[in-house]
């Protein structure tokens, strides 16, 4: 346990902003934005401090804190991070100030609640990645829905009916997933309580599972797996649980959509990697073929649907469904390459899709329509907007030199080692990605200038300040992904060693062994 509660301070930092906003005198509500930006930047700095404090050669979970919460049930407020949780927290703390900056005028003249909700959401997002207590994780996992629901339902696109439909759909879907998880959490407690002293501590559970102290009967393990998995598959929507995402993402403000798709959905894939695989390894193996099928369908289906969209934000939402398919593929490939790739992919997707959503939002704000048909020839009048949009698009189609390429290739190669057919089908998505991105670019940006965009202003300083850091990070991480894999690698190797079934022995390992003997 570290002497200073680094993580708790990071998690709570945005609340300083919330308090600041609440204390603002009447009539100065507009200052909320500056306060929110300041608080989120403070959180970013604190999370960087966490990363510096994290010893990559050290134990898997670090910066641990644990305080008794409900002692009767061994429920603790326990937080701690491994490398994967750490980089996801960093992604969250990078995206939040960017989103606040980009959402400067999206508050519908109700700045106090809007920016407070964003900050509260950040608290919960950071918290959910940091939670090492299963109960705490569940509470935050569900709690997130409240600020997210209000951000979608009360702000976002005009047209009350569709917006609340999208918000309710989001809520119902996730609530249903959450209920299944709730049942599984209870079930897990019932079984674990007999043999594990700390039945809600993730580390205690994982250790007990790997050492054999905690043993599930086959049926129980599979049901528990399903409870967690379906909750996560709804969150990081996998086909066929995906239909809430395009609605929610297109009705929400662009900033909310970034947090929704970029961060919230990652809790799903993060949860699969941490909870499903490590707590229920046998069931995970048993379900792997089925999950791979869903992942492959999502990958291709999401890409095809993206091609068929006429609304920019829906299009981007469907590309994300395709990318979540690939991430899931990497998680369930059971290879270090696949899992490092999947973890990296979660971060890179957040950055790339974040930039794409924000830029689409800037365009929609200018034109007042998300219909692709409403645009044309934008590059002539707003070259910076078009150029940054193209860069964001190219990163989304995983062009080498941009960070998503690294993660996509790792996921595919990691999958190919074990499941070549799934990987080969997954690879075809690189063609579909080129189609949906470049066709979108062609229709909106090139050709003769459409009359409706002829008075477009190019990106202003605030908008540039929001997207340039994302694009810069994408490029830096494209050339030097080692900055993140340094943290992710040990987390993956330490966790794969805990999966005792079917050692990650691959053809490549054998070939390398043969090569070293030669």
């Amino acid at each position: 346990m570290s002497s200073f509660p680094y993580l708790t301070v990071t998690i709570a930092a945005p609340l300083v902003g919330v308090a600041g906003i609440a204390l603002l005198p009447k009539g100065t509500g507009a200052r909320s934005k500056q306060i929110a930006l300041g608080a989120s930047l403070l959180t970013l700095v604190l999370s960087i401090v966490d990363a510096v404090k994290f010893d990559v050669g050290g134990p898997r979970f670090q910066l641990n804190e644990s305080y008794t919460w409900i002692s009767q049930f061994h429920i603790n407020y326990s937080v701690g991070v491994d490398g994967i949780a750490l980089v996801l927290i960093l992604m969250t703390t990078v995206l939040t100030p960017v989103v606040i900056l980009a959402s400067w005028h999206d508050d519908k003249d109700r700045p106090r609640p809007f920016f407070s909700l964003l900050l509260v959401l950040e608290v919960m997002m950071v918290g959910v990645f940091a939670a090492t207590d299963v109960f705490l994780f569940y509470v935050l996992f569900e709690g997130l829905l409240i600020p997210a629901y209000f951000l979608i339902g009360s702000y976002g696109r005009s047209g009350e009916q569709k917006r609340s439909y999208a918000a309710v759909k989001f809520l119902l879907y996730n609530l249903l997933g959450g209920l299944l998880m709730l049942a599984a959490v209870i079930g897990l407690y019932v079984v674990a309580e007999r043999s594990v002293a700390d039945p809600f501590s993730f580390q205690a559970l994982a250790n007990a599972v790997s050492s054999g102290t905690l043993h599930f009967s086959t049926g129980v393990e599979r049901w528990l797996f399903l409870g967690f998995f379906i909750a996560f598959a709804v969150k990081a929507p996998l086909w066929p649980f995906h239909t809430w995402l395009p609605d929610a993402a297109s009705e929400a403000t662009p900033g909310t959509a970034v947090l929704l798709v970029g961060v919230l959905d990652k809790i799903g894939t993060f949860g699969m990697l941490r909870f499903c695989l490590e707590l229920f390894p046998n069931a995970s193996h048993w379900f792997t073929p089925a999950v791979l099928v869903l992942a492959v369908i999502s990958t291709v289906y999401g890409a095809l649907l993206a091609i068929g969209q006429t609304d920019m934000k829906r299009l981007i939402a469907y590309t994300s469904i395709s990318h979540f398919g690939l991430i899931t593929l990497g998680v369930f490939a059971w290879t270090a390459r696949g899992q490092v790739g999947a973890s990296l992919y979660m971060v890179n997707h957040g950055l790339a899709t974040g930039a794409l959503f924000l830029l689409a939002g800037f365009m929609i704000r200018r034109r007042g329509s998300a219909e692709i048909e409403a645009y044309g020839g934008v590059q002539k009048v707003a070259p910076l907007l078009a150029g940054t949009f193209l860069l964001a698009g190219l990163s989304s189609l995983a062009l080498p030199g941009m960070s998503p390429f690294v993660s996509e290739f790792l996921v595919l190669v990691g999958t190919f080692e074990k499941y070549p057919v799934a990987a080969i089908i997954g690879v075809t998505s690189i063609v579909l990605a080129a189609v949906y991105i470049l066709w979108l670019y062609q229709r909106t940006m090139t050709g003769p200038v459409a009359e409706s965009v002829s008075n477009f202003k190019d990106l202003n300083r605030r908008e540039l300040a929001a997207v340039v850091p994302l694009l810069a990070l994408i490029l830096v991480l494209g050339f030097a992904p080692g900055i993140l894999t340094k943290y992710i690698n040990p987390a993956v190797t330490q966790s794969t060693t805990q999966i005792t079934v079917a050692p990650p022995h691959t053809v490549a390992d054998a070939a390398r062994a043969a090569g070293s003997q030669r």
Partner: protein
Amino acid sequence: MTPSYAPVAATGTFALTAWVILLPLAGAAILLIGGRRTNRWGHLLGCAAAIGSFVLGAVLFFALLAKPGAQRSYDQHVYTWIPVPGFTADVGFHLDQLSIVFVLLITGVGSLIHIYSVAYMEHDENRRKFFCYLNLFLAAMLVLVLADNYLLLYAGWEGVGLASYLLIGFWQHKPSAAVAAKKAFIVNRVGDVGLSIAVMLMYTTFGSFAFGPVLNGASSAKVGTMTAIGLLLLLGACGKSAQFPLQSWLLDAMEGPTPVSALIHAATMVTAGVYLIVRSNAIFDVSPNARLVVTIIGAITLMFGAIIGCAKDDIKKALAGSTMSQIGYMILAAGLGPIGYVFAIMHLITHGFFKAGLFLGAGSVMHGMNDDVNMRHYGALRKFMPWTYVTFGLGYLAIIGVPPFSGYWSKDKIIEAAFAQGGTSGWILGCAALLGALVTAFYMTRVVLMTFFGQKRWVPDAEGHEPHPHESPWIMVVPMVVLAVGSVAAGFLFSYHNAFVNWLSPVTGFSEGHSPINTAVLQVVTLVVVALGIGYAYLGYGLQQAPSTPPLGSFATRAARQDLYGDAFNELVFMRGGQYLTRVLVYFDMKGVDGVVNGVSAGLGGSSGRLRKLQSGFVRSYALSMFGGATLLIVALLLVRG
């Protein structure tokens, strides 16, 4: 015998290798980030980066030359790109006889085309951007040929695809250019699927995708796997090098500015597929089946492109058909194995000279003719553009293979090697190559006659300006002259004392082919065939004037004008079929997947309309239910423990 791959660490002069790439990369970065502030001098910076890179390339070449043949192989490790357990992807460069040849071609022709573009793009408001993209292209192409592993090669491969996309679509306000750019990228990505799966298969087979383990391990690996890798690499090559069945993008790519067509879509990028196959010689040496498919693709494409070249009235598209066809020759040669690798590369280099020269000549003609590309509107230009005429003429003599010009040396060797393959396939391939030579002579003579000879058929452009053909400024003429010198002399120099064969064979291996036909006889036959092609074109386009509006033509002509229906096929199957598929899926997603969801929720909680009415109250209760969930959990736990 496949030569072994055993580089040593690059020190001293050889450590300059990375700088060959860094110069144009820095140029591109400065021009991109500097934006409008660099408008005034951006083109000069672009040229300086290209020339600087060429000078470094030359220094490296002479340093290699000073070493004995077996010691001309160097590896420069720059940094570990993707550090992941059991997977090392490095940024590292490999300098040897093969890569340096490409470095000189890319930076040499590249520099000339940078210089030419200074004048060609002078009146374009985005000239700085153009040089930025050209520099980016150079950097990516150099990564492609200098990479010491297949993953980095793949990065360069996609990088040149990006540069090609940006440059084909340089005039983005033209819908045709934007569509052509997108098409080029997407078709290339189909090929990239092959290349990326090949890289994965290398990884699972050899535990690595670095050249060393792959190339040295190929001979002891399973033949079936090597065939699979070979065919996947071929798929990649087909995309990048516009080989059948992924050829359709190249003709559309002519929408780009002409210097781009010369550099990327004639001399360098489109030959990357040939590089890929020759570099992977160890893999193809093991698999005769993969090689056979390579030769078949090459033979089909060399005929395909040549036929298209015969029917096009657009001078750039006629030349593009020709490029496709000439790369078909190279792919054919590469598929022949050790008897052909060297000649594939030799033809690639001579082709780089004469085809870049021909394209620059075409650009010069367009410059003088109000950017008209229709050869039916040309005629008699030799009197007005003497330099262009002479340099274009020398390129023409080189491409049709008249001795002693460059093409004669390199193409004849390929024809000989094709016959030397032996057996029925040898005869078929040899005859295809011969027939290709005939058609090449025909369509190139047609281009020259229609452009430079006969009577003026000039027509005013859309705004009514009469063309006033004039010679281009010296800054455009000089690169054309230099390339013409290459078109004249390169073939002879390469063949002098077998210089090129001796230079490359340590990398590619070489074995003398034994043609079933006497070499001298074959050479005579080739020349006769070429003469026939010239004569036939003279009958059609020399003795009589080409009409200003194209005649209907035979079925074959019409088919060739339509690119032999390659696009009609794409349109029908991929565009229409794809649109139909996505529309059906969108409908299915809305009515099927989502419909079920809405149906279930309606069944559970009443109609969705009622839900909406309830929603304000519902949310408040949800906030409760949230904590209710936690409460429920506690209650459940209590019961469990009770």
